[in-house]
């Protein structure tokens, strides 16, 4: 057990014991190698379920709004619970966004910030090592050791299998927390921001279209990207609305485009590039290339990044008189 994990468990046990929180949302080991699962701890006795490692990929903010919803059909008086959560930089930004959008109450939330050096993308591990199925995997220090279902053992540097979002992450510490655990992370690497978007923008219109045709024809409309996203908390998504009906329930390319354009655009000025949608996609679609385009534009045009503080309004909830309008058509 690492130091952070140990401290985290102790702190959570304390918080549950003294009644500061009723439930703690963290990560626990999952049955498959290189996987974790969200974990809801309600008693100090259960804190040993909590883990902290390089595969705590889920953005736990996604799980928070449901905890503050009044149980359906409950007649009795109900007080929302006091909820603790462990937050990487990205989780914390999503939490900030949810607080600003009034989906979760700040005063009933206890955030334990943990510095993050980046999470492993399990698909990258398989791909990099050419392993079809993982029988076992172990993370030690800066490398991952895996055993394939064929019994072969291989090792790779974590740096080579980090999730794409993590490679470019500039906010490795929680931007909002009640407590931080562990040491401050090493400073963010000097990487060119939005390199993927910049490169993609240089392609011709035809090439870009063809790329998205290829990418989006993989989509099976399972909505894993949406469900894993902390920003997608709508009771009824535009994709499923029937009046008006925005798009058909098919994998006809046109419908898939409308869905993904709509989904990405609803994240405009709100996306924190946590990578949850990419990690969730069972078809390995590079949705980040879409999301990051908007993030790049938001940063360049409006000098804004989503959810860095509780005070600043999100980019599309604000404006400046002198905002760029060079894109507009003049006679």
């Amino acid at each position: 057990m690492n130091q952070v994990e140990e401290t985290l468990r102790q702190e959570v046990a304390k918080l549950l014991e003294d009644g500061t929180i009723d439930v703690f949302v963290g990560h626990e080991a999952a049955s498959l190698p290189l996987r974790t699962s969200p974990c809801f701890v309600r008693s100090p006795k259960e804190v040993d379920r909590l883990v902290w490692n390089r595969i705590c990929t889920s953005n736990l903010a996604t799980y928070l709004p449901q905890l503050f919803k009044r149980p359906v059909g409950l007649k009795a008086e109900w007080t929302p619970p006091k909820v603790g959560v462990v937050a990487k930089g990205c989780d914390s930004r999503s939490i900030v966004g949810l607080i600003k959008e009034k989906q979760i109450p700040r005063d009933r939330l206890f955030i334990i910030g943990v510095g993050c050096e980046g999470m492993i993308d399990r698909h990258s591990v398989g791909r990099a090592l050419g392993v079809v199925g993982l029988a076992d995997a172990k993370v030690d220090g800066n490398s991952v050791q895996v055993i394939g279902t064929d019994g072969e053992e291989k090792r790779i540097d974590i740096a080579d299998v980090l999730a794409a979002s993590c490679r470019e992450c500039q906010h490795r510490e929680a931007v909002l927390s009640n407590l931080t655990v562990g040491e401050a992370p090493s400073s963010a690497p000097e990487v060119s921001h939005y390199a993927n978007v910049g490169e993609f923008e240089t392609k011709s219109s035809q090439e870009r279209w063809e790329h998205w045709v290829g990418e989006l024809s993989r989509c099976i409309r399972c909505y894993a990207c949406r469900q894993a996203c902390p920003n997608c908390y709508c009771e009824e998504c535009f994709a499923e609305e029937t009046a008006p009906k925005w798009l058909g329930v098919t994998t006809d390319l046109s419908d898939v485009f409308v869905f993904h354009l709509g989904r990405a655009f609803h994240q405009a000025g709100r996306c924190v590039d946590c990578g949850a949608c990419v990690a969730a996609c069972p078809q390995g679609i590079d949705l980040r290339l879409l999301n990051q385009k908007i993030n790049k534009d938001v940063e360049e045009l409006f000098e804004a990044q989503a959810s860095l503080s509780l005070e600043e309004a999100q980019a599309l909830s604000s404006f400046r008189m002198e905002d760029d309008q060079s894109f507009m058509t003049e006679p």
Partner: protein
Amino acid sequence: MTKEINEKMSGNGWEPRIVAFLCNWCSYAGADLAGVSRIQYPPNVRVIRVPCSGRINPLFIVKALQAGADGVLVSGCHPGDCHYISGNLYARRKFALLKSLLEYVGIEPQRVHFSWVSAAEGARFAEILGKVIDSVRSVGPANRMIKRFKEVA
């Protein structure tokens, strides 16, 4: 339908179809003024009146393209003139991002246009519309993202 598409594809007799979302207070009145003033503007446009450019859900534009519009024009009040004070300024941010995003996924930028037209600017409306139509014409009939029913003759 197929015939129509074929005609469009071959470019013979093809005329761009433009959907224009115009705000009630300025641009719609501007378009109206153009008509009343007998300023000639091309008949390729289907106007949808909306209360404010801020009302325009980006999905309207995406949906118009899916439904087969060759081009889309969105027009509202000039900055500072919004009937609802700042609807157009919020809208401007949305449109800046949407235009860029559509271009990014391979929708020709010549198809999607935003403009400011006041109630007094009938001539400006006609000019902008002419420009939009020229721009759409330059890239030909829309082909990408249109929903087609193959099995429906």
